[in-house]
């Protein structure tokens, strides 16, 4: 239990010294992706091998055992390459590690300092030994993810060893409420959860409220399918986020906080629980923190499977034990939020940005990215991209840089078609947006939004109507059902999209979609409802011809929609035996015996009877 500022400082110094003394370290990634690929088995194998080889192994930081550090770290980001691990002090990155590789790593790298080339990341024959050499990391700037993959995510002491809780210490002892709010306001930090609302403004509004009880709430309900930045922060560097929340508590005069985490992130929940109990143990959380008058308690609420709970008022309703249905505003959350009290509600990444601003000052933060959207942004890039994973780049990095330099271009060298940004609330960007800087305002100008930061890359084989249908089916499934435009409107939009991809689109469907989209955007109750039609609007804007091809020509230009497959007879292989025309239930096949037959695709119902009947494999499916 740390009793005052000095004790915290002393402990931190001890941790820092211990970290320097730790000559050799193996950091096994224990993020969701790597765990799924077996990183825990790798970790255990290291323990066994080290014991067998007589290599002293220190699992716990600052324990009595002085030996090679073996740690579970947060996500490195390049999940495609999992299991990943990092060896210090060399900084070697090994990829796709299997338990059977452990012995070699120990004898070669740990004992003899040699690099194991076959485990290194290679790109175009180039071997990348360290992280800096991997092109994926070159354009990145890791601020929020600074410690992810570099420290043991389950150790408060390791967090201290990299300067953890310095910002909190400064805020608690050297700054007043106004000072903290001013620093955050000056940094121009904007909420990373979607809308990009100014964090400083939010804090100052809550800070001004006269109520005695106020809450800090962290939105960890990262529901956008294909986004996992917040997950990685909670798993990989939980203390950083807690520190941000504690500073918010100081700034706003709150003594109680809730973290709402998606149920699909069990690992994040357990890491946060560990982090909170450690902080409580050391007296960094609790009553009279470090001997001061500041009390702060953090609870964790596990979601129960509702995307809409990512919306602020739905999230607070869910914490209150109710249906997660957004409510009308005003009153706003800053005045009447959780349990009807003034509430600061920010997302994980926003809170994780706070310590660095307080520690290094607003000017440092303003030095990264454009002035109106400073700092970095974590994105997850998925889809048909070479380097699937988690990245962090300065705001304002262009789409081109993200896709081709960081992301490594498209998988298998296929042709870029579009990138969906911002998940089900977002829009698609195309080649014309390659030079568009990714920041709040630039994206807004083209009708897109950063959302929580999911980037889904689509290549020429991806049907954009189908993508729109996919997002609409997601939104429809996740609609809370409260307001009419979202509940009924998205249902109808989905029906229309479904019939278009099934080849049953009708003349006028595009206009009907746009008409509904307009009404929903203007009248839906919550932000998620208002933005639900965005994927449709933007795909119609950029890919209207694909919609038209589906509707008028019953053709899927991306050759993706199953229902639009056509059957045809190859005149080369057809012997003209007429068997196909006899089995056809709708008389769609005609021809003269002994000459190639033909299928009338207007009549054809794609039952496949002809395919089975043909002895010469002349009937084929295709677009």
């Amino acid at each position, binding site marked *: 239990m740390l009793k005052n500022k000095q004790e915290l400082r002393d402990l931190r110094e001890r941790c820092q010294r211990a970290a320097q003394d730790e000559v050799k370290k193996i950091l096994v990634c224990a993020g969701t992706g790597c765990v799924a690929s077996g990183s825990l088995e790798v970790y255990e194998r290291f323990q066994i091998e080290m014991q067998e080889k007589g290599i002293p192994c220190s699992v716990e930081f600052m324990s009595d055992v002085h030996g090679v550090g073996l740690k579970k770290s947060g996500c490195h980001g390049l999940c495609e390459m999992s299991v990943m691990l990092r060896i210090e002090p060399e900084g070697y990155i090994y990829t796709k590690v299997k338990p059977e590789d452990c012995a070699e790593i120990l004898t070669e790298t740990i004992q003899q300092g040699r690099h194991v080339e076959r485990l290194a990341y290679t790109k175009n024959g180039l071997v990348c030994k360290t992280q800096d050499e991997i092109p994926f990391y070159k354009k990145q700037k890791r601020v929020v993810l600074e410690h992810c993959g570099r420290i043991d995510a389950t150790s408060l002491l390791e967090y201290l060893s990299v300067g953890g809780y310095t910002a909190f210490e400064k805020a608690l002892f050297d700054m007043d409420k106004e000072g903290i709010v001013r620093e955050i306001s000056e940094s121009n930090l904007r909420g990373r959860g979607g809308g990009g609302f100014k964090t400083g403004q939010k804090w100052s509004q809550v800070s001004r409220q006269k109520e005695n009880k106020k809450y800090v709430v962290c939105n960890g309900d990262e529901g956008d399918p294909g986004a996992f930045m917040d997950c990685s922060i909670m798993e990989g560097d939980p203390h950083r986020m807690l520190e941000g929340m504690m500073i918010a508590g100081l700034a706003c005069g709150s003594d109680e906080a809730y973290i709402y985490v998606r149920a699909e992130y069990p690992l994040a929940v357990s890491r946060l629980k560990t982090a909170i109990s450690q902080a409580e143990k050391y007296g960094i959380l609790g009553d009279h923190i470090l001997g001061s008058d500041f009390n702060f308690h953090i609870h964790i609420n596990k979601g129960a499977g509702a995307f809409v709970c990512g919306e602020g008022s739905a999230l607070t309703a869910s914490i209150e034990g109710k249906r997660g249905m957004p409510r009308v505003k*005003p009153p706003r959350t800053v005045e009447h939020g959780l349990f009807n009290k003034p509430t600061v509600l920010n997302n994980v990444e926003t809170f994780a940005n706070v310590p660095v601003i307080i520690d290094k000052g607003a000017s440092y933060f303003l030095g990264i990215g454009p002035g109106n959207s400073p700092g970095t942004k974590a994105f997850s890039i998925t889809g048909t991209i070479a380097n699937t994973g988690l990245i962090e780049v300065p705001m304002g990095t262009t789409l081109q840089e993200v896709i081709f330099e960081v992301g490594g271009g498209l998988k298998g060298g296929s042709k870029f078609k579009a990138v969906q940004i911002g998940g089900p609330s977002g829009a698609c960007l195309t080649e014309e947006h390659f030079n568009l800087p990714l920041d709040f305002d630039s994206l807004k100008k083209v009708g897109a939004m950063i959302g929580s930061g999911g980037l889904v890359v689509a290549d020429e084989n991806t049907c954009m109507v189908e993508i729109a249908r996919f997002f609409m089916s997601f939104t429809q499934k996740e609609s809370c059902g409260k307001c009419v435009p979202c509940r009924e409107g998205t249902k*109808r939009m989905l029906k229309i999209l479904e019939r278009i991809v099934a080849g049953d689109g009708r003349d006028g469907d595009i206009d009907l979609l746009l008409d509904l989209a307009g*009404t929903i955007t203007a009248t839906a*109750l919550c932000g998620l409802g208002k933005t639900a039609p965005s994927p449709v609007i933007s795909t119609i804007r950029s890919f209207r011809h694909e919609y038209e091809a589906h509707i008028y020509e019953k053709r899927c230009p991306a050759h993706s929609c199953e229902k639009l497959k056509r059957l045809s007879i190859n005149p080369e292989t057809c012997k003209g035996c007429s068997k196909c025309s006899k089995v056809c239930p709708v008389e769609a096949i005609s021809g003269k015996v002994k000459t190639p037959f033909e299928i009338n695709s207007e009549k054809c119902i794609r039952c496949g009877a002809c395919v089975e009947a043909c002895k010469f494999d002349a009937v084929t499916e295709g677009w």
Partner: protein
Amino acid sequence: MSNNGTMVIDGLTVEIGDEKNLLELIRKAGTELPTLCYASELSIHGACRMCMVENERGGLDAACSEPPRAGMEIRTNTERLRKYRKNILELLLANHCRDCTTCGNSGHCKLQDLAIRFNIDRVRFVNMALDPKPDNSSLCITKDENKCILCGNCVRMCSEIQDVGAIDFAFRGSKMKVTTAFNIPIGESNCIGCGQCATVCPTGAIVVRDNTEAVWRELGDKNAEVTVQIAPAVRVALGKEFGLKEGENSMGLIVSALRRMGFHKIFDTSTAADLTVLEESRELQNRLKEKHDFPLFTSCCPAWVNHCEKRYPELMANVSTCRSPMQMFASVIKEQYCNSSKRQVHVAIMPCTAKKFEAARNEFKTDERPNVNYVLTTQEVIRMIKGSGLIFSNLEPEAVDSPFGLMTGSGVIFGVTGGVTEAVLRDISSDRSNSGLNKIAFIGVRGMTGVKEAQVTVGEREVKIAVVSGLGNADRVIEALKSGCKKYDFVEIMACPGGCVCGAGQPYIPAELKIDRAKGLYSVDKLTSIKRSGENPLVDLLYNGLLKNKSHQLLHVSYTSAGKESHI
């Protein structure tokens, strides 16, 4: 004069008063803004999105949730808004049964009304409406989830105002519906039949259970003699539908209409209310003597009795043993005509849906036949009058039949919250002067407030009284009693906010107009020559005649859980 400043609505400068939201101000300014989920007595739901208005920056605000601010400039009927509203209506109609002519709420349906107002002449979406699926398990209401537009008014009424919680939203998104726990039939749930959900339902999804056809059949049966009693609250609510003013007493016209429709004997429930007053006064005075700690609760309201049985069985001993006026009258009538050669049928016209359930209780049966054979609500009687073709306003008022033709002002004010208490106080007060009556009227028992408190001296003792309407308020009062925060000797509870005048069987009335019906009853009271129940000469006759040695048997009841039918 308020000094909240002014704002501009459709070019018109409007003074901002104490309106909570733009919607109320817009309506005050004379525009009937469309909405499907707004009811002033309920919390703001903001789900139908019909009340969106355009602000000076071209943005949209939901008028129901946006507070008026000085300097605001809004438009309520722009091209854009019309388009959105039409689209929203079209979306609702695409899922909604459109067999309006056979719907129980046709003519009173807000969705129908708005579809007409917005000239919806086509629906561009595939019709996904499901066939009507009425849940007739309750004797009081009919619920049809396939006619529900999910405005949530009933849910908020049932939980916020009535604190019953029989229904709630279930599931989400397009699968969402309003239902009981596990979708059990409403009649088997903890619903108490107050019917308040039906009063706020904008469509035909929850309507009052209809018994008119059965009553028409009885009227046509030559072997039946149909007697009818009319509750006090009915007379000030029925006339509006036929062009009278809200709250105007139309008792004479109702009697006239019923007689023409073929009812044989027509009586006024107020007469029996006088008996209730006397019996209840006696019970209170006995209790005061015996120094019971917990109060005496009134028992006139069947929804409250039902609620008490379900939620506070331990308090049933505190509920008055008096039968409700309807049941007292039914016993008396049964006794009076027991030797008649014709089959006796007794109908009660009530402002109340729960009375339908009360009538079916075993406690109120004689030889397994209910004393009240049919309960018709005001709404149903309106339907019958219309069906009969009578031109209501052209009728000549007529008087009720003897031998039960006399009633007092006390019996009439039973229909409004505080009325029972006021009548009991008139009876037990030692001050028999007119000013004594006035004093009682102003000790705090009148008015539409949900919980009213009063204190009177009876003999040596200060009697503490609470007058409660709305079951949510009842729960709060009981909570306070249980925790010891409050002490009362007498508590009047009416399930419907405002009392019987606002019963769910009455035609719909916005909360702010409810007071007109109350005023109507008080003015009837003013015009009656006898004010105190004990001074009704008929009462004396009854006690010395028909009720002699039978008053306890005929006028009191002991509620048992076995008395209830299996469900409401």
